[in-house]
């Protein structure tokens, strides 16, 4: 269960929150964005404390909404005994210097990560399988210190790849290769074309500011909400909502984080279509987007933009060509029949091409299909499809959405 933030807010200079700890009164946590220094009212002697670290990561992943600062904030920040030279307006030179410092720290973290990867390979993956989780955890923590939360998450996920799965060594090698590719791309950031550069920056953990994204010219369309997946992370719920633009014929992903542990309601329910303005984050093949203004429901989704397995795999390969680090891609398959062999689920299309399924929805798919071909939408990770919805009888049926850990 993620910790509960009772309050979260942000101004140009600071991020703050209140969180329930073991004491009666919630702790007040504040981070001065100018100096990256943190204060917290918790009794821990360790500084920065876990609350401050949590808030930093949260701010990097999904900055809280802007809000008027609470009364306690000013006092809290002054406790830092820093010269009170904070300015109302951000000085562009100072901001640039700060950005350079952060990039420098990230590069140091990247160097450490490279050495760590090499150590891992020197000892061999067979040995890595028996490594304690802590070894991954420590590297991940080091990357949080280096202000590269994206890389930190990558390393954590490496460590949590279950050894049990059949193709663990294969997946591990692919993942290691991708991390290395990312490190190399970071070092040569200036040589990359702008879209890819934006992808690399965000993968490392330098997210575009929400407001900057919302300032872009939006894509207006009727967006079909095709599926939603909610994952319970260590610190918060992560909710992915997949949209398909009827006229633009493009995918969009809405990513919501909720530290309070409640699924985010932006009113875009799977199975419904909305007219909305979407602003896309920069990238080689922009996918993640924000909704600008209020979406207006138009009707219900009737069909999926499905295709054969062969076409879907070709599209997947092409999208890897544009962004080789994507962990998952939206995939809609037309006229597939669910199949179960030795307890493992898959779907096959009319050409008898097969895609393995993951997740809990196998029986639901079979129940809806009744053995007949159906159109399925889900997330594809290069190995298997995690089904999220199915088109049936001229209607999109969301599969049951169970929060996963």
């Amino acid at each position, binding site marked *: 269960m993620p910790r509960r933030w009772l309050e979260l807010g942000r101004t140009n200079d600071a991020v703050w929150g209140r969180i329930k700890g073991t004491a009666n009164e919630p702790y007040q946590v504040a981070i001065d964005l100018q100096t990256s220094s943190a204060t917290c009212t918790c009794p821990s002697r360790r500084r920065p404390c876990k609350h401050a670290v949590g808030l930093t990561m949260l701010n990097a992943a999904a900055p809280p909404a802007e809000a008027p600062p609470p009364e306690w904030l000013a006092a809290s920040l002054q406790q830092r005994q820093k010269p009170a030279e904070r300015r109302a307006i951000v000085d562009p030179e100072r901001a640039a210097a700060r950005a350079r410092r952060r990039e420098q720290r990230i590069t140091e973290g990247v160097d450490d990560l490279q050495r760590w990867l090499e150590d891992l390979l020197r000892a061999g993956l067979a040995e890595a399988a028996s490594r304690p989780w802590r070894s991954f955890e420590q590297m991940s923590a080091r990357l949080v210190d280096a202000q590269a939360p994206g890389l930190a998450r990558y390393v954590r996920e490496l460590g949590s790849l279950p050894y049990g799965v059949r193709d663990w060594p294969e997946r591990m*090698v692919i993942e290691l290769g991708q991390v*290395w590719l990312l490190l190399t791309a970071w070092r040569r950031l200036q040589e990359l074309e702008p879209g890819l550069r934006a992808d690399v920056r965000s993968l490392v953990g330098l997210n575009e500011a929400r407001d900057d994204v919302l300032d872009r010219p939006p894509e207006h369309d009727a967006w079909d909400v095709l599926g939603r997946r909610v994952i319970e992370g260590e610190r918060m719920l992560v909710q992915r909502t997949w949209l398909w633009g009827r006229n633009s014929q493009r995918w969009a992903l809405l990513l919501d984080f909720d530290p309070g542990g409640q699924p985010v309601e932006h009113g875009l329910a799977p199975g419904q279509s909305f007219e909305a303005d979407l602003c896309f984050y920069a990238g080689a093949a922009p996918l993640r987007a924000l909704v600008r203004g209020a979406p207006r429901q138009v009707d219900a989704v009737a069909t999926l933009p499905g295709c054969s397995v062969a076409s879907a795999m070709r599209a997947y*390969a092409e999208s890897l*060509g544009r962004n080789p680090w994507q962990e998952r891609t939206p995939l809609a398959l037309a006229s597939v029949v669910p199949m179960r062999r030795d307890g493992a689920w898959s779907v096959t299309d009319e050409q008898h091409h097969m895609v393995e399924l993951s997740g809990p929805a196998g029986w639901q798919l079979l129940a809806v299909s009744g053995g007949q071909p159906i159109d399925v939408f889900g997330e594809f990770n290069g190995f298997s499809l995690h089904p999220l919805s199915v088109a049936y009888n001229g209607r999109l049926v969301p599969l049951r959405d169970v929060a996963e850990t």
Partner: protein
Amino acid sequence: MSFGALLEQALAGTLRLAAAGDSRAEEGLLRSAAYEGMVRLAARPLQRAVPTPWIPSEPETKPEIGLAAAERLREILDERRPELLREWLTLAVDAGRRVPYVEIPELLETARSADPALRELIMNVGGQRMIWLARLNPEWKFAAWPSADDQFELGTLSERVVALRRLRRASPAAARAKLESVWPNERVDARVALLGALYIGLESADEPLLRQVLLDSGRDIRDTAARLLQRLTASVDEYELLRQIDADASVAARLPSPTEPWSESFSRAIVARLPTLLARLRYAAPAFLRDAALCLDPRVAADGERLLHLGVASDWAAGALERTVETLEYRRAMRDELRQ
């Protein structure tokens, strides 16, 4: 380097390789992993599998519930209102509807660990697709019977209880005849369990059978028969209760909370007396209304709304009534949706 060779080196580690002279062996390996891994992801050969065609399921005979009712079921299953699952299922069975296909696996999972009464309700709203699906999973074979007759002839005891309840719901007389025909050959435990199915569609034509069973040697069997007979004649007790309530309204505030909802006729009689009752009960009214909201027969609950409005209109009851109002509205919505 082939992916296989790469995998081998990565597993063994560069330290153990003889070619230790290469100080950049790890970086070379990482570079290969980046390239070969990407090839692996992007250019995986398509997997082929020739599926065995599924035997098609029988055509459905009942209409599917509407969208609003489907959403309600999902909410109840998500354990926001688990206590209302039985009632919702009963309403759906009465309405002669079936659930959306996508809900079938979860309902089968619920039925797997449920008592025969709940199982019977679930099997009654599953349609042909539930039978079809249950055949494919050994854990659901309890629901795979093509007909209640087969299930009654060949099933385990708990399956036969479910079957008799299903038969009883379809035709009380036919189910009674079936029970009578097998009665002499049944063991004691089977007799008790099967007799309980008569609660569904209990009618005065059951009386001769029940009177005969009262002479049975098994004590549990006699008790069950006695309870059923009592229930058959309960209207007499209810009449007496109503007479008392009319004489002294405070009796209504002390109505015992029955384990099963009040009968339809008793519910109607109570609703008809509401204005008088509420006026006379005053401070005891909230407790009475709360009980009534839970015990009223669902078919009368629509009239029970009057109760809600009367209760809310009186200041002294409003505060205590939130839960009552919510329950009644929830049940009304359940009913209305299943009519759509």
